[in-house]
């Protein structure tokens, strides 16, 4: 039986009728048409679907929409301020931290939480910290570089 779910997504109050089995990522993509959050593996391994729920990074393919009732959700679409990119997005652009771009929304969302309050996070900590996000193009090198630069920019 459908239920009503309400939450704040990217600063806006939203609600919708969903079945309890609707995943948060399905609610974001199919109901709200926020298709920046990707579904890669759908088995909570690849991290393409990472969003923030109450400032904490989660895999939105492994959370029900109803579990986010009343929560504050931030997706990749909610980062930029008008035309100016979030410092982490800008760092990925500057450092060419992507090739095909499929994993990028999840990478950026994971990275923002990872470096919060840690301007000097080490390369090792970054590599370990993004082990829930898979990229099949870059070999991670420029992603790590981007996150290091983003950490400085965010906490500078």
């Amino acid at each position: 039986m459908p239920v009503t779910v309400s939450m704040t997504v990217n600063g806006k109050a939203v609600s919708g009728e969903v079945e309890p089995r609707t995943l948060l990522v399905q609610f974001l993509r199919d109901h709200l048409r926020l298709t920046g959050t990707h579904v890669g593996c759908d088995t909570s391994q690849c991290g393409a679907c990472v969003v923030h729920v109450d400032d904490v990074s989660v895999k939105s393919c492994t959370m029900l929409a109803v579990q986010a009732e009343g929560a504050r959700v931030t997706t990749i679409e909610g980062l930029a301020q008008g035309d100016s990119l979030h410092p982490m997005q800008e760092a990925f652009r500057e450092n060419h931290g992507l090739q095909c771009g499929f994993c990028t929304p999840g990478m950026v969302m994971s990275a923002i939480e990872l470096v919060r309050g840690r301007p000097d996070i080490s390369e090792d900590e970054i590599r370990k910290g993004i082990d829930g996000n898979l990229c099949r193009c870059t070999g991670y090198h420029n992603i790590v570089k981007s996150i290091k630069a983003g950490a400085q920019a965010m906490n500078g």
Partner: protein
Amino acid sequence: MYEFEYRRPASLAEALEALRAAPEGKPLAGGQTLLPTLKQRLASPSELIDLAGIDELRGIARDGDAVVIGAMARHAEVAASADVQATIPALAALAGDIGDRQVRNRGTLGGSIANNDPAADYPAACLALAATVRTNAREIAADDFFTGLFETALEEDELVTAVRFPAPAMAAYMKFKNPASRYAIVGVFVARTAGGVRLAVTGAGAGGVFRVPAMEAALTADFSPSAIEGITIPPDDLNSDIHASAEYRAHLVGVMARRAVAACG
């Protein structure tokens, strides 16, 4: 996923009532195992009873020289807890190395031990630290709690509320993990406790987590990696799968056990 109804009770009493009223209902903790299971249609509960709204199940507190961790404490909270880091640093380290960052932000202690996956990390800590599992009805010693593969002593409609971990003199956890799933292929938790040395193995046993009395006795007499050099585990009751054969797992138990003892310094 098959269809189900969803409830989010605000108290433990309400949750228990909801579980009793729904014979095919299932409690939902962090969902990091249950939701993937439902996606594969390996379970079809009529209702999910979400425990996330129950304050009584949260929180981490010191209790004398022990630490009590609420069933709904997330792995990330346990890893970051100053109380856990001060009382049992090996437990904080274990929690900080479960799955990946996003799994740790959602997964819970209670969910992990109630599921008793044979490759989960927490069961090894509970068993080696002689923890006590608290439920809505009683207290269960870890030795009696883990009864087999995905099996525990929990009754139908009984919920874990917290786990009490007594602080050991020293402890360490070493795991050889599958690089893709990050589950333990073999994990060994060793602890010097008031009642002697306890050593528990996860990831290897066909029946789930188990202790190794021969190693415990040797380590109680002489707490050094060389004391257990010659003690081997028969592969007969160990898991064999595409990740590792039973013989390889048996070998890894020895290696991880010696590394864990060495890590106690």
